[in-house]
């Protein structure tokens, strides 16, 4: 796909879905993380199924973000880690710095909560989107630009060509999150880790982002790990849900089972605390 003779258009929609590669999953087993005597993750086992959205729910401090960051060795300095994170036959926790860097952003990409702080304020969208494509995929400037344009179209940014030359502050939060998703897709990742992707957004914008993420999963065969404390979002998007508390996964099941028939009392308390359900009790 990076042959020089190939027309620009082919560096875009058709081949970048990696039709030849099947969707890949991630298998976290026995993940333990200790930091300065505090046991932050305890024997975390999570199977992120290929081509599906796996939800990781929990309150702040439950270790859900730490678990997702650990997949790419993004834990705090001084962490004592054991267990394994298997991805395409390799244990990501055992990779060296150079090898894990090749995985980060390339095969496994991140989407963060606050889109306005995940962009450099002084660099145009084009600059930020094409930079890592040229580094990871060795594309020429024109190819990278064409690809950026194509990705912006895919995430439904109006006037994508104009958008490329704009700067982050010229976009609303929702649009910026779409651009962040486009950017995450740039290097044809197999896994996307979305950490509270809609928490900072307005509720009317949230639905659009959820739909977009669903589409990536269904149409492109991407595997998504969705980290959020919002069970409404979880119910809308996740196929399977794991619930974390105090560094442990206390319950795992299908979306329907977790939301409608939670087994663990803690999961049940989380679901009962949702405004819709509180309302039901009060009425």
């Amino acid at each position: 796909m990076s042959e020089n003779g190939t027309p620009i258009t082919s560096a875009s929609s058709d081949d970048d879905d990696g039709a030849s590669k099947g969707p890949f999953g991630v298998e976290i087993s026995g993940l333990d993380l200790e930091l300065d005597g505090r046991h932050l993750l305890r024997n975390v086992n999570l199977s992120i199924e290929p081509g599906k959205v796996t939800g990781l729910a929990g309150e702040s401090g439950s270790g859900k973000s730490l678990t997702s960051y650990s997949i790419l060795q993004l834990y705090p300095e001084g962490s004592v880690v054991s267990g394994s994170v298997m991805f395409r036959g390799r244990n990501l926790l055992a990779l060296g710095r150079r090898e894990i860097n090749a995985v980060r952003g390339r095969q496994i990409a991140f989407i963060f909560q606050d889109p306005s702080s995940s962009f450099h304020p002084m660099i145009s969208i084009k600059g930020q989107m094409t930079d890592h494509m040229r580094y990871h995929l060795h594309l020429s400037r024109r190819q990278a630009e064409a690809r950026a344009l194509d990705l912006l179209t895919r995430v439904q940014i109006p006037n994508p060509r104009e958008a490329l030359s704009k700067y982050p502050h010229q976009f609303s939060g929702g649009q910026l999150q779409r651009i962040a998703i486009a950017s995450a897709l740039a290097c044809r990742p197999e896994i996307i880790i979305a950490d509270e992707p809609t928490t900072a957004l307005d509720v009317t914008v949230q639905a659009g982002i959820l739909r977009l993420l669903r589409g990536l999963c269904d149409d492109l065969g991407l595997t998504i790990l969705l980290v959020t404390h919002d069970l409404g979002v979880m119910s809308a998007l996740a196929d399977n849900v794991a619930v974390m508390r105090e560094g442990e996964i206390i319950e795992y099941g299908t979306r329907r089972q977790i939301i409608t028939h939670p087994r663990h009392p803690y999961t049940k308390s989380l679901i009962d605390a949702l405004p819709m359900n509180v309302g039901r009790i009060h009425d």
Partner: protein
Amino acid sequence: MSESMGLIRWRRRFASSKFARALRTPLGIIGGVFVVFWVVMAIFGPQIEPYDPLSQQFGRLQAPNSTNWFGTDQVGRDILSRVIASARVSLPVAFVIVALSVAIGSFIGALAGYLGKAFDEIIMRLTDIVFAFPSIILAMIISASLGPGVRNAIIALLLVCWPSYARIVRSMVLTLKSSEFVISGRLMGRSVLSSLFVDVLPNVMTSILVLGFTDFGGAVLMVASLSFLGLGVLPPSPDWGTMVQEGMNNFSAWWIALFPGIAILTLVIGVNFVGDALQDSLDLQNSTERA
């Protein structure tokens, strides 16, 4: 809320948290030893000095020997005793300068930041004027026009030093005053002054005190510089700056200038090391407290 912030917080919190821990770096320890040494010298100097620093009882310009470990000066005074005695002048003078400029600068700066508008504008232009001159030159000019002497040197250095604190406190107050707890205090009927003293200033003071400590070294240097130029501590009172100057007049007698020079060096370096360590720990603390 996402835990990504929490993640960074942990990293910082565990890297280091308390002032005491900050001083446990090698440089912090070295600095701490120097500072404590000179403070002890300043307090217990009279008991420690082998001879009267003013008495001209020895032969002139004697090189260091078993009686006069640091040698004697051109009128036969013991240099070791004079170096120790100087600490009694330099340290308190530098302390007064820093303490007063922190107090005055913080108050004026805080008012400027809080009140804004014309008052802020006037204060900031005043500081601009001071910043337009190299500080030691400005201190020289003021001190020369007031006449030599310790008191005038202090006034001169105060005039030069307060603006930097005013500037820093002002910018900190600007961010703090729109903070929700400050607004909340105002909604409960706090006056501007009460808001400033209860809600705002206590939250900038730690940083300012650490900064003041770091500047203490600079103040010692400035006092010595003014004395060197004959504008600060007047002879025959011992002072490192005047001693270095005397050494200039007797160039072959290297010991006259060398030992006070080492005294200045160790004190200033010590203060800077400790100040840096405190600053680092403060940065860490701030980043752990904000979320």
